[in-house]
């Protein structure tokens, strides 16, 4: 939660100078210039994020003082964390691997063209998502690519990447 608040504050601070660079109301012919709206939004985000940070910090302090009196519970939660780490790194980071796969797919579309890239993508993606049987991977890949190609290209005439 603290990370979230800090990142939000950084986000707002990053864009603030850009907002200040925009033309103010007095510089343009319209009564409210292009600067006003985004500027106020960023200021509000900043205020709320700081408020949120302070609130969560205060709550954490209160929780901690309550937790100190109960050492047993603390130890137990520590133990649980260790157990989770034992899970394979692949399982833990599967979502990031998946995202990386998608990004690579998008790049491949430009390099290889849509159909071959899709073919590779479906195969890799279904394995990443945990499909083990090789025959199923093959069936999914072939049927999936074929279906998507037919549906968008022939039936609906939608431009493919």
């Amino acid at each position, binding site marked *: *939660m603290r990370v*979230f608040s800090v990142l939000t504050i950084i986000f707002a601070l990053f*864009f603030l100078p*850009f*907002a200040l660079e*925009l*033309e103010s109301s007095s510089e*343009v*012919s*319209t*009564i*409210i*210039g*292009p600067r006003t*709206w*985004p500027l106020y*939004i*960023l200021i*509000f*985000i900043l205020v*709320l*994020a700081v*408020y*949120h940070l302070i*609130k969560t910090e205060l709550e954490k302090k209160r929780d901690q003082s309550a937790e100190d009196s109960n050492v047993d519970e603390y130890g137990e939660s520590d133990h649980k964390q260790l157990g989770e780490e034992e899970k394979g790194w692949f*399982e833990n980071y*599967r*979502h990031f691997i*998946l*995202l990386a796969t*998608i*990004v690579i*797919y*998008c790049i491949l*579309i*430009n390099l290889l063209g849509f159909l071959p890239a*899709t073919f590779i*993508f*479906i195969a890799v*993606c*279904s*394995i*990443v*998502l*945990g*499909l083990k049987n090789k025959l*199923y991977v093959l069936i*999914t890949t072939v049927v*999936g690519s074929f*279906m*998507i190609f037919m*549906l*968008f290209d022939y*039936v*609906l*005439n*939608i*431009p*493919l*990447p």
Partner: protein
Amino acid sequence: MWENLSNGLMTIIEPTHFIILMAAVIIGFLGGALPGLSGVMLVVILLPVTYGMDATSAFMLLTAIYGATVFSGLITAILYRAPGTPEAVTTVFDGYPMTQKGEAGKALGIGISSSAIGGMIGTIFLILLTPTLANFALRFSAPEYFALAILGLTVVASLSRGKLTLGLIGVLFGLFISSIGTDPLTGAHRFSFNSANFSSGIELVPVIIGLFAISEILNRSSKKENMEQKVTKVKTKIFDSNLMKKITGTLARSSLLGSIIGILPGIGASTASMLSYSEAVRWSKTPEKFGTGAPEGIAAPESANNAAAMGALVPLFALGIPGSGTTAVILGAFIMHGLQPGPSLMTTESDLVYAVFAGLLIVNLMILIFSKPFIFLFSKLLNVPYSVIGPLIIIFCIIGTFAIRNSMFDVYVMLFFGLLGYLLEKVGFPLVTIILGVVLGPIAESEFRRALEMSNGDFSIFYARPISAILLTFAGIFIIFAFIKPIMQRHKKRGKLEYQEKIGGKP
């Protein structure tokens, strides 16, 4: 109006449209059956499919799917205690106990018929109220639209699920995203970093697809595979005249309540089903039977959530304000097809709107007819592993994003929002609020500035005009109430704790 409606019915009878409606109902059913597909996601995935269609077919398809998914959540809720859609959570209370008693077929029958009846009553409300509201709203000009957008933004209070600060940050973040690109009034480039991609702004659809579909896939992939569900053989009996007599009162009350709640922007079908359940308990002569498998306990939430889902389309069509995640996506679809929902849509595209209305009526009838064979098929579909559906969903998302304006940039924007949505979901951030900001941001800003142009910079224009004054007052009340509510609750809680300490009980 009746003439329009009969025209709409004629449009539907055309074979292609009829087939689309049928397909929509079946796809909507699938949404409830396939693991990891929610109503929002289903509409998002099918967006690209509608690009190639004419507007009437496209919106018949999308709204019919929307109607059918709200219904389909009840099947898993009753059979496996796992509501397929958030709207069906309340249905579990009495639906699952009935399954345990071996009355799953009866429970499904009640759920299906209540859904269809609730949906139809909701649609009738939709047909009757939308033109009236739109007519009224035709007289609106800039200050009223601004007030309306602000009122729409206050919905954040109910969408942020008790995390008001986060919800407000979400809305503001959404407003900020919508301000990226070319300023509509002066043509100035904002936050474009001299890139042509940024200067044309961030499209709504990549944001929605990223936040809802991609983040959900990432979320599911990080979890262990879903549990195996054993499929029980169920014989569904849809109409039971004795039972129907017993629940008629509940049905009528809940459908009415659901429709009204649905129309109020941002409260949504989940709240409607919850409220109507508690109302059903209040009105019942035997309240102690609720939670153990009372038929009324299924009839109330199911009729209310379907009625509310239809009612939620009233502000969408009449005012252009989305009340929920799915309606926000449908709004995005309208904009993509070059149509702006709002008061003028009813006059310029009345054929389309009435065809959609008539379609929804038919869809609710179809639910009654199709549900029985579908529940049989359902058992087979639950076994399709996510690793087969996942890649296909991702490709649909990518094509859907790309096809809006043939831009790979949009695809990367979508992926960025997917990651963002995944991370934000982890800290319990209410994602819908961001969409709310993105959708209403442009309206709020440009109407605000246009209104001030009208009045030469005099702010009194917002409260000197009666309608905008009333709307803004309501918005003010909502905001104040949202801030007071948690304080009041804390007060209550503290009072309770003190009381419990006094009597020596455990808190």
